[in-house]
């Protein structure tokens, strides 16, 4: 059962994805292990465990270990929420996470371990998936729970809202990537199953993005906003992979890495604001630009990174997803144009919240000036690194 042919299909993408835990580790060790983010030794240990599980999954060739640690990571996240969170309804959110994940897990274990036990012992996971459509469908369902597309994302926003800072950094940066990595490694991009549902997936992604852009103006929880933007980006991965071209899977990796680097840092900023100001509302009252210039610069920079300004990884994400969509359908491009334009409009909405209001509600944000001042020069350098690590530069 454990003896399988070592198959690591995209070594470069593995190395590329391994930059994320390095980035998060540096960030946490730089300022995270203070009392701001992680409470005690056990919390730190759990975080280290998630990081090591992630690294192990990426390196190992066994499909069994992949599934095992995938479930274990969800368990660890729930533990972290229980251990570190200060939210009042964390029990409810833990229930929601478990129930949503079980909907994906139970059919998978039923089909792979009970019904076709003999097959699984003799064949590799990829051969199994290639033979029967039901296996592919069930595996896809399992992975799509971890990597949410629209209408499967409810557990993710709930988890982010009730999780603590370090926990949601790890959740956004690492755990969501495992589903994407599984899709890249085990699913078959050329399969007729995906061909039949490809346009449906794209339309769901585009319509959901438009819907989110209009809905988000009503919500003022900053963390909720970052979680939603991460859902918007992540929900593109599976439709792009299902196109079947190499550019699609190429752009998938860019989406994952860009999202892992950017959203984890944005969660860090949210946590800094929350811990020092005891307030997570998005309405800073314009005082942020005056109270802490370094923090407002950081926020502006990472907002721009989020919409994909060129030299960063997120630009590669936008560009390559556009190339991949060219291969699929030109009608979808129309929706994508409006999505990107609306994201820019929303960015300006955020910037007005930071820079433009007149009322001065200075709430304890002076304490983090010293922290973010050193961040501004240290961390933007890191986002350039993956660009030069990978040879995507040579394409241009």
């Amino acid at each position: 059962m454990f003896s399988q042919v070592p198959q690591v299909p995209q070594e470069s993408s593995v190395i590329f994805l391994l930059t994320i835990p390095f980035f998060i580790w540096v960030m946490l060790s730089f300022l995270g292990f203070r009392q701001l983010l992680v409470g005690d030794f056990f919390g730190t240990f759990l975080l280290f465990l998630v990081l090591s599980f992630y690294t192990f999954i990426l390196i190992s060739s066994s499909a069994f270990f992949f599934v095992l640690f995938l479930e274990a990571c969800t368990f660890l996240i729930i533990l972290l929420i229980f251990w570190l969170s200060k939210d009042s309804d964390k029990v409810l959110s833990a229930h929601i996470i478990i129930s949503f994940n079980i909907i994906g897990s139970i059919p998978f274990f039923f089909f792979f371990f009970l019904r076709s036990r003999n097959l699984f012992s003799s064949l590799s996971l990829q051969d199994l998936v290639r033979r029967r459509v039901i296996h592919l469908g069930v595996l896809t369902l399992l992975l799509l729970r971890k990597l949410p597309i629209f209408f499967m994302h409810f557990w993710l926003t709930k988890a982010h809202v009730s999780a603590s800072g370090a926990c949601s950094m790890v959740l956004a940066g690492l755990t969501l990537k495992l589903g994407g990595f599984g899709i890249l490694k085990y699913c078959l991009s050329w399969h007729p199953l995906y061909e039949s549902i490809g346009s449906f997936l794209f339309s769901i992604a585009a319509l959901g993005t438009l819907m989110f852009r209009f809905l988000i103006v009503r919500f003022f929880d900053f963390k909720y906003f970052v979680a939603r933007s991460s859902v918007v980006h992540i929900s593109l991965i599976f439709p792009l992979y299902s196109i079947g071209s190499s550019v699609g899977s190429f752009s998938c990796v860019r989406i994952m890495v860009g999202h892992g680097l950017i959203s984890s840092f944005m969660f860090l900023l949210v946590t800094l604001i929350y811990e020092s100001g005891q307030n997570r509302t998005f309405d800073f009252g314009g005082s942020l630009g005056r109270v802490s210039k370094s923090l407002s610069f950081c926020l502006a920079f990472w907002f721009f990174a989020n919409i994909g300004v060129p030299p960063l990884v997120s630009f590669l994400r936008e560009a390559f997803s556009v190339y991949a969509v060219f291969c699929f359908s030109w009608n979808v491009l129309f929706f994508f144009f409006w999505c990107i334009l609306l994201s820019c409009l929303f960015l300006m909405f955020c910037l007005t919240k930071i820079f433009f209001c007149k009322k001065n509600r200075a709430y304890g944000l002076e304490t983090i000036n010293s922290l973010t001042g050193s961040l501004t020069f240290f961390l933007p350098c890191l986002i350039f690194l993956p660009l030069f690590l990978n040879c995507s530069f040579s394409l241009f």
Partner: protein
Amino acid sequence: MEVKNFRAIVFKKIFYLTFLLFLFRNTLIFSYSSDLLWGVNFWGITNWFNSGRGTFKLDWVALRFLLIVSLVTSIVSLYREIYIQGYQLSRFVRTKILFFISIILLLFSDRPFCLIIGWDWLGVSSIFLIMFYPNKITMYNSILTMVYNRGGDIVLILALGLSVFFGLNRRVFFPSSGLIIVLILLLLCSLTKRAQFPLSSWLPAAISAPTPISAMVHSSTLVTAGLYLVSKVSLAALDRSWRWFLAFSSLRFVGGRAIALFELDFKKIVAFSTMRQIRMVIVFFYLGFLALGLGHIVVHALFKTLLFCCCGFYFLNNYSDQLFAKISTKNTSLLNSLLFFRIFRIRGLIFSGSFFTKDKILEALYFHFPFYGVSLLFWGGLLTLLYCARFARQTIKASLHPLEETPKSYKYSLLFGLATLIVGRIFPIFTPTLVVFRINNLETIFLFSFFLVLVSMKKMDLKIKIFLLSVQDIFYMKTLIFSRFSRILSPIKVKEFFHSDSFLSPSLIILKREKTFWAGSFLRFCFYLLVFIDYSFSLMNVALKLLKCEDKK
């Protein structure tokens, strides 16, 4: 500020300015294609850049753009020291540097990736500069600018994706098939940055940036980025099939002026003027006159910088009120004369820089669109006349609410207006139309122009000094045209030049063939030296005069 310290600062700045003027203006005058590249390649840089390995590329178009950009930026950064003192200074300077770096990335890009970086960061840094003074108007304006610029970026990404889709080359913008669609997308993209008719509403909105930044945006950076993209892709190949587009969008000739006649904000009027000039450069490009269009960009950049500098001084003198009708002109006589020279230049009168370009475009438009183009130019010219009359009336008008005492930095800051005036006062672009006439005894005229400098060192009114300087510049131009080109060009060649753009082609080769190359370069060096001395003298004169006024008070 103490007088002694103030004087020391002024002299330092003047030395810096003269050096810059000497450097840039003369390179701009002698900027033939191979000449520029030869100068750079002296250190072997060009070979390294253009070897095809790097992401950057140097060519003469980019170099000429670079010269304009760096000249305007240096003038603006000196002007900034008066205009913005203290208020969020470091943020302003950093964003301005980002702005400058991104335009340079755009100019030197060979790969589309590099081009997109410059293109996108131009938009981003510009909105940060627009929201420099945080209030409601700048908020709306920055949102408008960001949405338009980002739309252009997305179209650029789509164009890149299409050219990848149709077949990847090293130069990605020219795919093997489907060229027309890519070119249409690039055209749409360049519309957003150069603010052409359907997508132009952000340019009047962008004037809520500080005035030095408006000078940069309108003269050299943001608007010319769109022009640079057009010149890079060379849409001139499409002019036959795109006549309808040209006709449609050249309605701005009339429209921009008509709006500017009824506008109340001073800076918005200038913004509408920019739209019209940019439109004219685009017509040049469509008709195939690349070098002439670039020359017009230089002229336009210089007088636009001057105009914005004048604007800033008026606002300083007028409680920061931007309403055109309320501007008081009591204590600003020198400024009024500067504005008069600017009107002289925008009208395209003879011996001004824009005369040559406008003459050429009239000729070409008459050749291509016999009825439509000429009637359009007629109405556009008429409206320009009305517009200039409005400006001229403003210079004479009695002030409503004059300031009791002029700001102390006013006189000092006038220097920068003077600098732009002297650089761009009359910009010689060598048209063959004047080579037909021949004049003897050129050297006497040349010497006479230097004699004028000595005359201007005496005690005299400032207006007269400026007039003398401009006269002297006319002599420069004449000597340059008649002494060098009358020998080189034969009458047969002159006939060819009417129908081609090649009159800016290398003179260097001809000199080499005649074996007088080194002698020519020595003469040129001497000429540079004389011009440098002349500039420093004239600027020092004006500065001394200003400082004496300061001391008397």
